[in-house]
């Protein structure tokens, strides 16, 4: 266990190092941060003085070594735009992103498991076919389109008059397809509960939860179909295996077979994929957060790019890299718990 952790920590450092080098190497292509800092009519001389002050004129290697030296002491520099340490800026924005990912994950878990299992047990039922069809559509629509459609339907509202409204049935159908709207379409709302440090949570107030609905559903819409299909495929395979047939022959109830014995083995690959996907989801939040003006790290990163806020870009990439390493480590640990035959350090048992 200890050896495993040591190995992982050294891996994390390597990842951080590579990311920081890449981020530094591309910063020349990210534009001139001075353009965002000063007005158009400021002379070239003044600009040069500020560049000198910021150390932007030093050779790249000198800049990198200075950065790396500070980074080893936990200082990733100051954001140009926020005029604050980058880690502080990220800490302020991270809770919003994590809550969005948690919201989306909850939707995925509570929908994908029952739907996936159902589709595996009754592959011929029309409801299964319906779910599989919808999930194909879901997987092929880009998240920002889903988001815009959701906003139109549930925030602004749509009035339908496809059917003659002077007849009873026509009116009923029109009402059926029309939507009310009213769900918040941007931001996190006014009532956030302060938990600790920089964590302001929207999970404990009505408006906070309302603001979470559309963004979480949009974010979940990319991953949900994948999980439904994964669970269905794995479950169908497990249902064919010998031990399930034995259990059936033994006369165990269908519920016990399906949910206790089969599902447990189905979940192994799902956990592996799921862990990695949560990491990817942090990256996907960039799109979702932009559309919903969700004040998380994704939106912050995108704005940092348009502002050429290089220290913040580098710090964000490193933090996201760290999140990936940590989730992968956690996934491996959980995997070990679910399936005790897996040895973490890779030693021969």
């Amino acid at each position, binding site marked *: 266990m200890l050896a495993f952790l040591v190995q992982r920590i050294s891996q994390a450092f390597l990842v951080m190092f590579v990311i920081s080098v890449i981020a530094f190497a591309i910063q020349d292509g990210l534009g001139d941060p001075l353009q*965002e800092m000063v007005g158009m*009519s400021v002379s070239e001389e003044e600009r040069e003085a500020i560049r000198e002050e910021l150390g932007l004129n030093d050779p790249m290697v000198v800049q990198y070594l200075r950065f790396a030296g500070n980074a080893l002491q936990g200082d990733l520099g100051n954001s140009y735009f*926020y005029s604050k340490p980058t880690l502080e800026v990220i800490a302020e924005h991270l809770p919003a992103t994590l809550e969005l990912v948690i919201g989306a994950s909850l939707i995925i878990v509570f929908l994908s498991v029952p739907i996936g299992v159902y589709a595996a047990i009754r592959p011929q039922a029309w409801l299964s076919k319906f779910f599989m069809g919808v999930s194909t559509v879901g997987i092929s629509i880009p998240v920002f389109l889903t988001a815009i459609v959701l906003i139109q339907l549930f925030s602004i509202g749509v009035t339908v008059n496809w059917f003659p409204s002077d007849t009873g049935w026509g009116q009923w159908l029109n009402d059926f397809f029309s939507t009310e709207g009213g769900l918040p379409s941007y931001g996190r709302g006014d009532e956030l509960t302060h938990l600790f440090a920089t964590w302001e949570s929207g999970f404990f107030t009505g408006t906070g939860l309302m603001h979470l609905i559309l963004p979480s559903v949009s974010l979940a819409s990319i991953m949900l179909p994948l999980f439904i299909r994964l669970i269905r495929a794995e479950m169908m395979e497990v249902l064919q295996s010998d031990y399930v047939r034995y259990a059936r022959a033994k006369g165990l109830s269908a519920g016990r077979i399906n949910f206790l014995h089969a599902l447990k083995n189905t979940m192994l690959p799902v956990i592996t994929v799921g862990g990695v996907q949560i990491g990817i989801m942090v990256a996907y939040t960039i799109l979702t957060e932009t559309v919903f*003006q969700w004040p998380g790290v994704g939106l912050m990163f995108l*704005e940092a790019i*348009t502002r050429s806020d290089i220290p913040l870009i580098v710090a964000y990439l490193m933090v996201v890299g760290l999140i990936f390493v940590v989730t992968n480590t956690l996934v491996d640990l959980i995997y070990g718990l679910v399936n005790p035959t897996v040895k973490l350090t890779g030693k021969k048992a």
Partner: protein
Amino acid sequence: MKFHSGNELTTADVKFTFDRLKQSQDFKAIFKPFSGINIIDDYTFELVTSEPYPLLLNTATYIFPFDSEFYSGQTEDGKDKSAILKHGNSFASENLSGTGPYTVTERKQGVRVEFERFDDYWDTESPGNVGKIVLTPIKENNTRVSALLSGGVDFIAPVPPNDLERIRNDKNANLVTMSGTRIILFHMNQERVEAFKNPKVRQAIAYAINQEGIAAKIMKGFATPAAQMSPEGYQGYNESLTPRFDVAKAQELMKEAGYEDGFTITMMAPNNRYVNDDKIAQAVAAMLARINIKVDLKTLPKAQYWPEYDNRAADMMMIGWHADTEDSANFYEFLTFCPDADTGAGQYNAGNYCNPEIDALVQKANVETDLDKRAAMLQEVEQRLYDDAAFVPLHWQDLAWASKKNVNIEPVLNVMNFPYLGDLVVE
């Protein structure tokens, strides 16, 4: 008149602010004509200029008096409270005491800012009845419009051109548009392209561009076609100059210049700086193809575009300019003056167009205090730049705001795009 801190505003504060502006990297160029300020009594001061300066009042509007008592002295950790920092935090960037109708009660940078009405606001006649304002920056066009249509916010700006119709047709929304003062134009770099030195070629290009078409089709009517830099209302605005789109004439001019077979040039434009900037550039490239000028177009995000602009990296480059002084001379000084690194003249003249006679005329206008004479001079400048086809003007970008029906924004809006929220009335 009281500051939010409770201090009274006097001329001492004006002098404090003036001295600070003279040191600010962003403002010292604008305040260069002023040599000093004399305090006469608590409520009277005198601004001194080194030579007659017609833009005195325009420039004086940049003096937003600072609370000298509040911003003097040192913070707990020994920093000067009045420090001007371009990067990093200063006392002034997080502590506020002004004379405006609102005070900031909460600020999360880039997320939301809350304002509350200041009880001792000096303008007791103000009809404004808004007690609290929450400002939320929403970058994404669609989200901003949706926020208004779904009732999440009361007032949005700017309104993207693609959504103008949608908002105009919405029964709960109120749309206000105005012709703006930011000119969008292309420079033709004479240092990079020999042909651009020939006025006939430049005129041919000016004749080949259909400004009205761009304003109607690409900007959806959300722009005013331009044939000069000064918008209506500026002293230099010359009524007789109108877009001269005429392809046959353009072809003829190319023929006269000896470039009937055309040539190839490079073009660069930003793709996220001005409204529809990349589409405008594509349209201009297509229009130039009709006079046999082949355009190799590259569009870039603004963060990467401006360094390229400073390097004059393409033969034709796009720029939009709004005069800080709300005056025509500012356009010429930055965009058409003979470039001179020492004085900073022509800093954004990516065409390298240089006509010392015109520059001299502008400088003469800059010390002419008879405003009618000055206007005549500046209008002559516009005329000569037009005849010479010094650059390719496209349009002035319009301004648009939208609100809910009960929010009466129209009286508080203006062409500077500084809504006077203090006077805003919500029914």
